Each structure stands twice: as structure tokens, then as C-alpha cells.
């Protein structure tokens, strides 16, 4: 008589346990545990293609646990390459100033670029987390490009909600012992980004100036064709999703916020799989077409940095960033919801080393042809795209970047990155 209810109860418990487990897999605690209690794995031979069958032997050990749900799937194909050595430009570190320091908030003061501010990251250093981030923020090759982009906004099952096309052009001003444009020594970088499609956004452009002084907020203007004039924008609001994309401004490159608005913990280094030198802009795979598929991965040693926003109304309880220990580029970022400490957003980056353009060229933007051969010789990474996933919606934004390195002359930079250029647009 009680057999059926007991079976039903057991079934309900099983289902409940399954969903609890599924949710827990993306909790902060599980990722923290995955970082601090490494899963052992065997070395992988170069040229091996990892698939779903390698889940327990390699994938769970090398893909951060919060990402398993998206990156481990039936039919997956990860080509594993040897862990590469990617030297920085020969002049990197040769023209740095040395009169800089970290203040008691962990803010880098007086640094002007031209090299990594911190050569060694030590576990016991209380500022190790901030130092990793400063190295990432001043890495070589982060700008000085013309970067047409295509972004796809996809829901579950790969449903395409929107496709955006835009171009970002950016230059480094602060270069250690000199500045790109004399008289602008307070400027770190300048960037102009213009949308091309869809038409409701076409012609919208913004100019952003970031400063060497980390305490100074960026300056920004946005030109909207419908208004035919630029509008000053607010830089200190960094936590709202951008134009329907599944990211906030603070998520840029893993961390694009203010160091003094977080508390920091360095969690050491960890081996992870990374798309650090892909042959081409990767195709997308998985059940929702959210992640890179059939492309080249490497096992990389990454610094793991944990940060907790100190402001009460921040959407994140914590953020964990994996930054390549050799090149200081962001590989993975995971941000956890303040409400339940489960994954809210994550991103993962696809990079390509400039010297690899000598023997393999990625695809061109669908709307402009560029000469990529000039990328060779810069000895820097180029950002070929990223996956940004909002786990709660759930929804994702995938971007392909078609980067061409471009060094502006002083005269050209002065003309191009100017407010004058923002008072009119393509219409």
C-alpha cells in the first residue's frame, strides 16, 4: 500500500538531488574547491583531440568547474597543442620608469607602462593578487589596433537574438619613458568604437580616455546619429549589462574595474586549458553554440585571483580570474551572484600570437578586408574573441575580433582621438 508513495518519494528525492547537484556544480564553493584541491591528470600528448570521453581523465581537471556545463559536451573536439613560449616584444621592459609603487590600497601609483610593473609574483605577498592584475592591465599588445568585430547574442539551443558589427580602434599613449602624443602624459589609452549594424545602432560611436592615474575615472563621449551630437557618458557605473550583451563593463578582459573597490586574495597558480594561440577565429559549438569548438587549446599555468567587491550593491559576491602566468592575458573569468553565490557571468578569451600570422592567417571580417601580414613582428597577442555567458538567464554573447595591429603616428593620433571627431558621424 505504501510502495507507490515511497517510490514516488525516492524519485522526487533523486530528481531534487540531481538539480541540486547541477546547480552546485556552478557554485562559488565548488569552484573554490576545484582550485584548492586539484584533480590529478596525466600529461597530454601534442596533437591529441580531447572529447567527451576524456571528461574524467583530463577535462574536469583542466576546465574550471563552473564552465563544465558549457564546455564539456557530446561531440566536442579540442585539439591540444604543446604549451608554447610567447616572448614579449624585444624592447619590452627597456623603457620603463622605476619610480612607482603600490599604495596601501594596492593601487599602482606612478607607473607609466613600457613593461610589466611586477616581475615576480610570490604566494606569500599580501599584494600578489593586485600585482597580477596590474601586470594584466599593463600587458603588451592590449591595444594599438584596428579591430572590426562581429558579436552574436544567442539564447538556449543556439537561437540567434541579435548580431552586432562594430569596430574598435585604440592606441597606447603611456609607453614608459615617452608618450605617443607629447603633452598627453596623463593619458594611458584612447579608444574610439563605432557601430556598423544593426541600423538602429549604426553610426553610434563612443570615445573613451583612460588615465595613468587609476583614481581618475575614464572620460567618455557617445555620439548618437539620432541626436547628431555627442553626449558625455558616466564612467563610474560599471555594473549594468551593455547593449543587450551578456557582460558588464567591469568584466572586460576579466577585470576592468577599480582595484580599490575590491578586496583581493591570490590563490596561487593552476593548470587550465586555454585558447591562447588559435589558428583562426573559432567556430562555436556545444548545445547552444556558445563556446569555441574544433580549435586549438594549450594547457597553461594561470595565476588565480579572487576578488570580493567591497560595495554593498554590487551584483557580484566574488569574482575569480585566471590570468596566464607567462603572458599576463586573461584566460577565464567567473563572477558569482551576490544573491545565492552561484555563477552569474563568465567569460573565456581566444587569443593569437602575432608571430603565428606568418604561417596561419585567421579569417577576415565579413565587411572589410585587412592586411594581416603586418601583424608579424609585434611579438604580442591579439584578441580574436571571447564567449561571455550569463548563467542565470541563460544567454551568451560570442565575439569574433579581426585584429590588425596599427601604430598611429603622433599627428594622426592627435587628430583621430579628439572630441572634434565625435561631433559628427556617418549620419
Amino acid at each position, binding site marked *: 500500500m505504501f510502495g507507490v508513495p515511497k517510490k514516488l518519494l525516492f524519485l522526487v528525492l533523486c530528481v531534487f538531488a540531481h538539480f541540486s547537484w547541477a546547480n552546485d556544480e556552478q557554485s562559488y564553493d565548488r569552484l573554490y574547491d576545484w582550485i584548492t584541491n586539484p584533480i590529478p591528470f596525466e600529461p597530454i600528448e601534442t596533437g591529441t583531440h580531447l572529447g567527451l570521453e576524456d571528461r574524467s581523465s583530463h577535462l574536469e581537471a583542466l576546465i574550471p568547474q563552473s564552465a563544465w556545463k558549457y564546455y564539456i559536451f557530446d561531440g566536442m573536439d579540442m585539439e591540444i597543442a604543446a604549451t608554447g613560449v610567447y616572448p614579449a616584444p624585444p624592447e619590452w621592459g627597456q623603457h620603463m620608469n622605476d619610480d612607482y609603487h603600490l599604495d596601501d590600497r594596492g593601487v599602482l601609483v606612478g607607473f607609466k607602462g613600457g613593461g610589466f610593473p611586477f616581475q615576480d609574483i610570490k604566494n606569500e605577498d599580501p599584494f600578489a593578487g593586485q600585482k597580477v592584475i596590474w601586470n594584466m592591465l599593463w600587458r603588451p599588445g592590449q591595444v594599438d589596433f584596428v579591430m572590426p568585430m562581429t558579436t552574436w*547574442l544567442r*539564447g538556449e539551443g543556439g537561437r540567434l*537574438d*541579435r*548580431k552586432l*558589427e562594430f569596430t574598435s580602434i585604440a592606441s597606447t599613449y603611456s609607453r614608459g619613458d615617452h608618450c605617443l602624443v607629447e*603633452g*598627453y602624459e596623463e593619458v594611458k589609452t584612447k579608444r574610439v568604437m563605432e557601430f*556598423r*549594424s*544593426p*541600423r*538602429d545602432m*549604426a553610426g553610434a560611436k563612443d570615445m573613451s580616455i583612460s588615465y595613468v592615474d587609476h583614481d581618475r*575615472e575614464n*572620460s*567618455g*563621449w557617445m555620439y548618437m*546619429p*539620432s*541626436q*547628431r*551630437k555627442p*553626449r*558625455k*557618458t*558616466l*564612467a*563610474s*557605473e560599471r*555594473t*549594468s*549589462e551593455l*547593449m*543587450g550583451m551578456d557582460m558588464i563593463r567591469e568584466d572586460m578582459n576579466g577585470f576592468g574595474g577599480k582595484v580599490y573597490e575590491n578586496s583581493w586574495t591570490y590563490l596561487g597558480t593552476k593548470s587550465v586549458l586555454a585558447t591562447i594561440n588559435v589558428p583562426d577565429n573559432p567556430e562555436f559549438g556545444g548545445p547552444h553554440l556558445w563556446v569555441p569548438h574544433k580549435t586549438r587549446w594549450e594547457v597553461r599555468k594561470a595565476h588565480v585571483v579572487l576578488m570580493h567587491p567591497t560595495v554593498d*550593491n554590487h551584483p557580484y559576491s566574488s569574482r575569480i580570474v585566471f590570468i596566464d602566468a607567462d603572458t599576463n592575458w586573461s584566460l577565464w573569468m567567473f563572477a558569482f551572484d551576490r544573491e545565492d553565490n552561484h555563477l552569474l557571468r563568465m567569460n573565456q578569451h581566444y587569443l593569437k600570437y602575432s608571430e603565428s600570422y606568418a604561417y596561419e592567417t585567421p579569417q577576415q571580417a565579413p*565587411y*572589410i*578586408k585587412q592586411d594581416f601580414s603586418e601583424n608579424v613582428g609585434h611579438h604580442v597577442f591579439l584578441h580574436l574573441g571571447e564567449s561571455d555567458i*550569463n548563467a542565470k*538567464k541563460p*544567454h551568451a554573447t560570442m565575439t569574433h575580433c579581426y585584429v590588425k595591429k596599427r601604430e598611429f603616428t603622433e*599627428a*594622426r593620433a*592627435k*587628430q583621430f582621438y*579628439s*572630441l*572634434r571627431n565625435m*561631433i*559628427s558621424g*556617418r*549620419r
Partner: protein
Amino acid sequence: MEKYIRPYLAIAGVCLFFFTTHLSAIVSVGTELEFEGFVKFQNILRTPKFKHAEAIMQRNTAQLEGKYYFLKDSQAFGLFNTGPIEEATLTVTGRGVYDSIYDVRSSYDKAFSKSDGRYGRTEASLREAFVDVVLPPVTLRLGRQQVVWGETDGFRALDVINPLDLSWHWSRESWEDIRIPLWMARGIYDIGKFAWFDESFVEGIWIPTDFRENNISTDPRKPWAFTGNGLNKTANAIYKDGLLLDLDTEMRNRRPNKKLTNGQAGVRFKAIWGDIDFSLNYFYGFSADTGIQVQKNLSQTIDNTFYTVKDIVNPRTHVLGFTANYSDERFTQSVLRMETTFTTGIPVKLSADAPMSADPDRDQYDTARRTVVMIAADRPTWIRSLNKTRTVFLSSQIFWRHYIDYNPYYRGMSTVKQATFDGRVVSGKYIAENTDRIDRDEFVMTFSASTAYGAAGLLKPSFLMAFDPRSTGAYNKLKVDYFWSDNILLRFQQHIYWRAFNNDPGPWGLGDIWGQTSENSRHETDLSIIFQF
């Protein structure tokens, strides 16, 4: 019947085509030529006093924008070296309009016959055509174009270079679409950093001969005619010496004609001082607002008709302005904006009974000097009870207009009334009177909020309110955009006009002027389908 169904079928067919078609945004032809544009089907339902409804507009618009990159990297047409000229492009925008409501509604048949020239029914125009030339440190834009100055949204102080076409939907459309582009030359000299200033430049504009006034329809048969604060009629009678006479008005065009001495020009210096972005502006032009000068010496009564002559004039104006904005990242997390102007040559009406001291020319016309001060704040704000993933963009502004040499006989909007004689209504006769005394200080406050919903932010609601605290007249707009796809945008808008107290029309075209007290009541529901590429 077939006549009325045909436009619907045509529109349904076109809609079906667009809903099943995907076009890339910006269609490229080779590497030098690009096209973009939109087709818009706009349907407006007017609901006077919310008591009944009538379809007043079915405006179908096709706009095509072409851009030709004929000079790149100092090479023109890939053939000629142009030396210091680095880049040049040609941009051409054309627009065609067909308002099918006049074919659908039989009641409009009489109003819009072929003899009317079908004005408002169809339109084909070259909106903009200009060449951009980059010749560092100078950039030029030459041709028919729009130039916008100032920090104010939705009201005009410094943004007076291009007039507005208010004839078909007042100022309720995007101003990009209702500004009247002018043939002009615009040049910018980039200075950059000097003295205390950063990002500085000087901009000059010259409009050699192309003067246009604001386009306002006064034909009461048109859906958005401006007939003042009363009946939607044209005055055809007048009280004279205790008699009700027919009124015959001859309007003489005394607008500036197309000659170089009627040129207009302006200059602006813009820069950043500290963290304050500011500009100093000067514009020497003609008032886009039209004045009416009554030629009393040419007016006379013959038999039962009073003949009057009025001149349409647009006086010379000087506009001197200053704008500033500042991004306060620390305390208010807002962008603070301000704009102030001093303008001469504002045409104003004088009361017909103004004394000689107030109206020595007896032409019921004067020009005034006016100042404007506008302060505003923009703030992306978290309201998590409304939206958990995106901020709500809040923007508010206060706009204060002040007449310097104020005259208590200044008059605003006239009112058309039914004529009466000996206590009896005279059928078909309407008289105009003007008792709307202009206030020396005029105010309007605006507030807007917008955000985006949905996983990809495809649902975009926005709310706008403009309120005149003196007349208590207000305008509200609720707008919802939904992006069905990258090509198709569905738009819903509800326009509501109201007032809290009294019956003061106010100076801004808010509240009662389009509101509840007369047959002008113009609450509207606007449904649009836009195919964009």
C-alpha cells in the same frame, strides 16, 4: 470598396516580404559603396478625449542612405594622389513618403483632392547630400546637412541652425527626421591641447543662401494643423465697429530670399577645461519662427468684407550661447549639463489693443530679446525592483526662458471661436481672438526614463514627461520598441496631453493646446513597423 482595400493589401504584401527577408545592415557594393536605410509603416490612431477613435495617419516612409568612399589614404578613386587630403566621402540620403490614410478614409477624399497638390499625402525629397573631407587638422562637411549645437533635449535654444518640419506630426518625431537640412559649409579646425584647454577645436558654419523657416501647417484639414487654442478652424470673420464682417486676408511673403546678403553664419569654440566640457557659440541668422506684421494702412472695409494685408517676416537674430557638461563620478554619479543663450530678434505678436507706446508701428508685431537657461542631469540608475540586469537611464532637465525687454502686450497663441452676432451663433463664421498674454518667465521641466528587458535587451520601454509648471499643461509619452529581428522593429507609442488646472495654453505646445478642452484633443496611439537595413 476595392479602392480602400488595395492600400491595405499592398502594405500587407510589403510587410510579408520584409518579415521573410533578411538583409545585412549596411549593404556593401564593392569596398567603396555602402547603402543602409529603412522602410517604416506608421499608423496613428487619434482618440480625442478618449471618447472615440479615428485613424489619422498611415504614413509609409522609405529612406535610403548611400555612402561613397571615393578618397582613402590620400588616393582619390584609387588613381590620384591627393596630398594632404587624407579621406573624403559622399553621403546622400533620400526619403519618399506616401500617407495611405487619404486613400483609405473616404472622409478625407474631399479634403485632399489633386487640386491641393496632395501636400502631406506624398513626399519625395533629397534629405541630405554632403561631402566629408579630412584635411588634418581641418575637416570639412559641404552640402545639405544638419548641424546640432547645445545640450538641451527636445527644446530649442542653441539648436536653431536647422528649422523643423512640424507640419505632419508636430515635434513628436525624432528630430533627426523632422529637421530641415540646409545647404551649408561646415569646417572644423582641430587645436587640441593649449593653455588650460584640452580637446579644443573651432567650428565655423556658413549658410550662403538657404534660409527656411519652421514648417507649420495651418490648414485645419491636415491632421497636425496648428490652429491655435480653440476650434480647429480658420478665422473667416472679424468684428469691426460693432459689425460682423467677412475677413479676407492677403499674406505677403517677406521672408529672406535667396541671395548672399541673406546668408547665415556661426562659430563655435569647444574645449575641455579641467573636467568640464564646454562650448562658446555664436550664430548670426534669421529666426526660424515666423512673425506676422499687420499692414494697417493697407487694410480697408469694402461692403461687408474687411480686407487686411499681413506680411510674413523672419527677422535677423543673433544667438550667443554657452554650454557645459561635467561628469560627477563621485557624489551624484551623474552627468550634469547646462546651456544658456541670449537671443535677439524673436518675433512676437502684440495685442490689437496695445497702446501707441507699446506698438508705435501699429502692426501688432515686435521683436524681443530673450535668454534661456537650461540645467539637466543624466544618471544611469539601478532600480532593481524594475530591472535586475540593467540600469534605468534617467534624464531630467529644467528649461527657463526669460524675455528681457518684456512688454505686457505680448501675445501667444490665438483662439478661433464660433462667431456670434446679436447673441446668435452665425453658422460657418469663425473669428480669431488673442487673449493669451505671454509670461515674462516661462518654464518647462522634462523627465525621461528608459531601459531594456529580455535576455538580449530586445524590449526597450521608455517614458517621457514634459510639464509646464505655470500653465500646468503636460505631455506624456510611453514608448515600447521590440526588436523582432535585426531587420524588424515593432514600435508602440502612446501620447497623452493633459493639464492640472485652468485653461492656459502655455508657450510650449503641451497640455491643453493639444489636450482636453477643445476639439484639438490629440491623444494618440502610434503603432509602427520598421524594416531596417
